[in-house]
């Protein structure tokens, strides 16, 4: 007899033009003492199902059909039921620990308030209960930390407090919506361990909503795969991941970058652009291909960058060392990976290489010329042409007011003002086709494209000047895993055909392993180690690298 039963749940949103089904006839059951993973890409309706259980669906969406049984009570039958179950029998953990705690109350006040809303305890009893809870979720010195404000906790600690809040009224069902997505790898594994432990100790039924297959593989007992509001497949995690029955599940599993080996290309089963078949790099005809010389294309020497936050005072107390004495070289034609957690300074280095920031000290050499010392704008243009960048956020990296052809043509016209308009059009079409977009895309605006297609436009723009170095700053971290696989394949093909040198920045170790020849690991602006990819993954020398490697969620853990 399962604890939570979702029967034929449908949720729809009445929009201006049509009704969108966020969930369609979803049937899910969860038992006590088990963790059910709800996995899917963005827009698959996985969060909708979680929100429907506690009736937190925003207007204009509404539950149009189906029932949700908790124990044997239909919680949607009566609106009073929901209010008394939400928070009491059902606990919630949200994605962002920054916003799910109220910053102007101490965590103690917030815990006591929640406890007293649902349980009839006096303040003293509530306080004792709260402190015990904080101890249970692993907060040290709970007696004193009780009086702290949320900003005095780190991200991981804050998420622990959120978990204790969710647990404080002895819930029987816990819904965790992407609980670790905003956290770094090392903290992620601690939080997942905590959720696993609590599930066993308290005999909870847990729904873990995530997009990360590694997290699913390591944490959940059973998994439900969703796509476009439909439940594709549900079953034991091991069975679903190892022998997926549905095509969609197969493609999802095959798009996940393996952590234990390097593969040539990702197997793509379902394509985003069905009309395009093979990669067809048309710009090859125009590309003045540089022979790969065995030399260092980029040399970075003792690079440092401090951000001064002192507007009124001259003191350097407020200054932050974002990058601290970093040196490395990138060989021509290689892919060089820069790995680190948030705040490690990896994006700052990228921005200095593309000359968006000036370094505080140290030099960057490109093709044996020190580009940090160039003052002359004309001189700089030569290098701007050769170093291009792809950004993380495909939504802010394209100007929404310009047509795609204007976005792509801007660099061409700037560096080759004499180009004829007919030639320019052909060049744009070639570029778009090289990134597997249709010619018709040229006349559209960016908002008409999906995240993955926007990233392709971004790549086309970067290739327009025929660069030698392509800086990719987390190019796929905003994308779904199947789209990520396609973009990574595209980058690999382009690199091979066009002899590009790539600086690939990511926090995602499996992705870096697939993409890079050499890897540098950064922590707090300092370089931990540099070595060949396989060497780094097999015999990491630095402690921090070892920690990262053991803690990253591995989809392969399912085979053990």
């Amino acid at each position, binding site marked *: 007899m399962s604890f939570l039963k979702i029967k034929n749940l449908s949720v729809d949103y009445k929009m201006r033009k049509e009704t969108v089904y966020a969930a369609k006839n979803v049937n899910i059951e969860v038992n006590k003492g088990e963790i059910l993973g709800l996995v899917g890409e963005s827009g698959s309706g996985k969060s909708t199902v979680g929100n429907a259980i506690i009736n937190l669906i925003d207007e204009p969406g509404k539950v149009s059909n189906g029932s949700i049984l908790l124990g044997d009570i239909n919680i949607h039958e009566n609106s009073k039921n929901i209010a008394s179950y939400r928070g009491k029998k059902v606990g919630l953990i949200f994605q962002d620990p920054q916003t799910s705690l109220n910053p102007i109350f101490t965590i103690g006040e917030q815990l006591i308030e929640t406890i007293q809303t649902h349980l009839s305890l006096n303040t003293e009893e509530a306080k004792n209960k709260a402190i015990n809870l904080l101890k249970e979720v692993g907060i040290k010195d709970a007696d004193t930390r009780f009086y702290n404000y949320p900003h005095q906790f780190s991200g991981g600690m804050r998420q622990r407090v959120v978990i204790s809040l969710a647990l404080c009224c002895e819930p029987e069902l816990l819904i965790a919506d992407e609980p670790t997505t905003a956290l770094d790898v090392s903290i992620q594994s601690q939080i997942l361990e905590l959720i696993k432990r609590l599930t066993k100790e308290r005999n909870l039924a847990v729904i873990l909503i995530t997009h990360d297959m590694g997290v699913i593989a390591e944490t959940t007992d059973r998994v439900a795969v969703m796509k476009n509001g439909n439940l594709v497949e549900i079953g034991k995690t091991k069975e679903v991941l190892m022998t997926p029955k549905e095509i969609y599940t197969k493609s999802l599993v095959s798009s996940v970058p393996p952590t234990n080996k390097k593969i040539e290309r990702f197997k793509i089963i379902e394509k985003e652009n069905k009309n395009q078949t093979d990669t067809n790099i048309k710009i090859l005809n125009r590309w003045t291909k540089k022979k790969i010389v065995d030399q260092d294309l980029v040399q970075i020497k003792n690079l440092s960058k401090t951000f001064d936050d002192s507007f009124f005072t001259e003191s350097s107390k407020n200054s932050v060392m974002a990058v601290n004495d970093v040196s490395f070289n990138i060989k021509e034609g290689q892919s060089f990976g820069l790995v680190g957690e948030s705040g490690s300074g990896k994006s700052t280095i990228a921005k200095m290489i593309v000359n968006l920031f000036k370094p505080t000290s140290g030099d960057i050499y490109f093709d044996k010329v020190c580009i940090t010392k160039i003052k002359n704008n004309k001189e700089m243009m030569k290098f*701007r042409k050769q170093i*291009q960048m792809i*950004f993380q956020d495909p939504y802010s990296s394209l100007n929404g007011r310009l047509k795609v052809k204007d976005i792509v043509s801007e660099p061409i016209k700037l560096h080759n003002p004499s180009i004829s308009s007919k030639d320019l059009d052909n060049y744009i079409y070639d570029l778009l086709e090289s990134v597997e977009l249709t010619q018709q895309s040229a*006349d559209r605006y960016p908002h008409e494209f999906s995240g993955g297609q926007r990233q392709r436009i971004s790549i086309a723009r970067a290739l327009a000047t025929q660069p030698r170095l392509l800086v990719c700053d987390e190019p796929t971290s905003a994308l779904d895993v199947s789209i990520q696989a396609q973009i990574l394949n595209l980058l690999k093909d382009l690199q091979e055909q066009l002899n590009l040198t790539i600086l690939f920045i990511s926090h995602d170790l499996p992705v870096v392993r697939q993409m890079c020849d050499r890897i540098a690991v950064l922590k707090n602006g300092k370089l931990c180690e540099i070595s060949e990819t396989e060497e780094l993954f097999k015999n990491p020398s630095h402690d921090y690298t070892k920690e990262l490697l053991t803690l990253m969620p591995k989809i392969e853990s399912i085979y053990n």
Partner: protein
Amino acid sequence: MDNKKLNVWDRIRDSDIYFSFIKSPTAIASAIILFIILFCSFFVEFITPYNPFDPSSLSLMDAFTPPSWTEDGVAKFIIGTDGQGRDMLSTILYGSRISLIVGFSAIIFSLVLGVGLGLTAGYFGGKYEMIVMRLTDVQLTVPSILMALLVDGIARGIISREMHDEMAIYVLIFAIGISEWPQFARVSRAATLVEKNKDYVSASTIIGVSNFIIMFKHILPNITRPVLVIGTIGLALAILAESTLSFLGVGVPPTTPSLGTLIRLGNDFLFSGEWWITFFPAIFLVILAFSINLLGDWMRDTLNPKLN
């Protein structure tokens, strides 16, 4: 995504702005009123049978004719005539044309000045930004009417008496414009600060696009929404400021009266019973400013991403 190309009209009909316009009776009503006022004011020569500024067509016999529906009213002067026998309705329409021209020109002047300064201040930052923003702070401590009076006073000192009537309208535009620009500067600077940190700006910088082109081709189109909203509300304010100044006697000369001038002239007759001479221009001004404001409110609600 469908492949067929949409023409401009389809695009407009497909847009969210059109949708919310159709759904808002207030917006439709104010847009219609505004359109009628604009149309009548600018094509007044073809609409009214009278030219109030042609002395030969005036007859003092017609002076102080009350509105047509009152006892002594005459059908050919619908809302009566003023002290010189000019048809009030035609005079108001001619007057509103002056008011609108001054209002629009002043707002365009302050928009260009304010957005130019705000955009560059937000983009370049540093000392330049500090100077510009402190300037707006200082400007905002001076009430705009006083500012306009000051400009008018200085202009009277510089420009010779003969030239003054001719130049009055330009002085007025400058005076109102110079007192409104800080609003535009502040809003456009704030919007620029948001836009300049977006990746598309970085991408253009990396490509090597010049600062000038980044500012005006990339950032400017992306900050038009907030600027448009305060521009609309500013237009109503500018028209009111023009009327206030004309009412005080420092605006356009009585030979080419604006709405404010008409209200002032009519004011003299208020206590002798000829109420319509001041009442109708005043009510016309209220309707004009009110419908612009309502349209501005609707625009703010529609274009504000936070309220969607």
